[in-house]
């Protein structure tokens, strides 16, 4: 693991929270993908593609969750500017999903 300057840990907790979230998302996605591919190779052609799709969807959801987590942290810290910026990003993603479905 990479060494972190200890004096900064308390100063910017947001990086560590987001890092933990992204690591969890990528680990869950990687595990689902790996099991799915292994089952595919073993001939489970009906079930395996579905498992892989779930893995891909977990991966897709991770950056969106990351923006939500950042928004929550900024609201807790009463950093209203950045809370608002996160909200703008979330609205744009939501609008993308809404319009995307109709395309």
């Amino acid at each position, binding site marked *: 693991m990479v060494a972190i300057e200890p004096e900064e840990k308390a100063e*910017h907790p947001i990086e560590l929270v987001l890092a933990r979230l*992204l690591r969890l998302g990528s680990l869950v996605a*990687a595990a689902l993908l790996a099991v*799915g591919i292994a089952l595919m190779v073993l001939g489970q052609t009906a079930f395996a593609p579905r498992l892989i799709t779930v893995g891909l969807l977990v991966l897709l959801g991770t*950056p969106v969750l990351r923006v939500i987590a950042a928004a929550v942290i900024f609201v807790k810290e009463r950093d209203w500017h950045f809370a608002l910026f996160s909200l703008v*990003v979330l609205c744009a993603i939501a609008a993308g999903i809404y319009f995307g479905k109709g395309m």
Partner: protein
Amino acid sequence: MYVVITFITIFAIGIAAGVVGAILGLGGGIIIVPALTLGFGMPMRTAVAASTVCIIATSTGAAVAFLRDRLTNTRVAIWLEMGTSLGALTGALVAALVNQRVLFILFGLLLAYSAYNMFRTRKEHTRPDVVPDAISSKLRLGGSYYDKALGRRVEYQVTRTLPGLIIMYFSGAAAGLLGIGAGIFKVPAMDQVMGMPFKASSATSNFMIGVTAASGAVVYFARGDVKPLVAGPVVLGVLLGAILGARLMMRMPASKIRLFFMPILAYTAIEMIYKGVKWW
């Protein structure tokens, strides 16, 4: 047996794309799309859909290491994500209306200019003092990180915050239109325009492209373009490659990374202009 070999090959391509993408702050789509279309004869839609999910994988995989090492500037990222996400939305909405030839040529010229700028400043290890503008001071956008290649802490300021946001809007629009993460526009915008160090720019771009790509990926999923048997192995490879690439990048000198980045910029610029001119 044939399935296994195909899986392993796609997986290996994914690892290579993940390493390159993480080091340069790009999604790796530049490698994946040609490999899947030219190498495996897959349809463009399948390749672009798989590539978009790979961009998320690169971003997520590499961001963990960059965040822990504080290379990512999260405040700058969220400020600029307003531009990229609104741009991506616009891009997706107007994709059908805009003349693609003109876009290709415009982007090509923009990229060529970035490549030239990077070539011009290739030997600058320390840049002249960056004076933060009013927004940057108010939002405390400046930062610092420990550079393992230099063996010391690098403190930096951020300037031209508004021009940066406007460029991000257009980079987001390019991403929405072309189904890419558009890291190739984000890195020069931070590095050249906003005065951020290259490594911080690359790590922050990497962090941001996941969100840009997520909005595009939703559309591809909804259309059923994401084929699990193609996207599964390549995405798994990209995830592992990105984690590896992030570790590598932190130990590489910034000047070397720039040297690596320039030919990619130049190549993409030529290809985009060529595409635009060819369809004239």
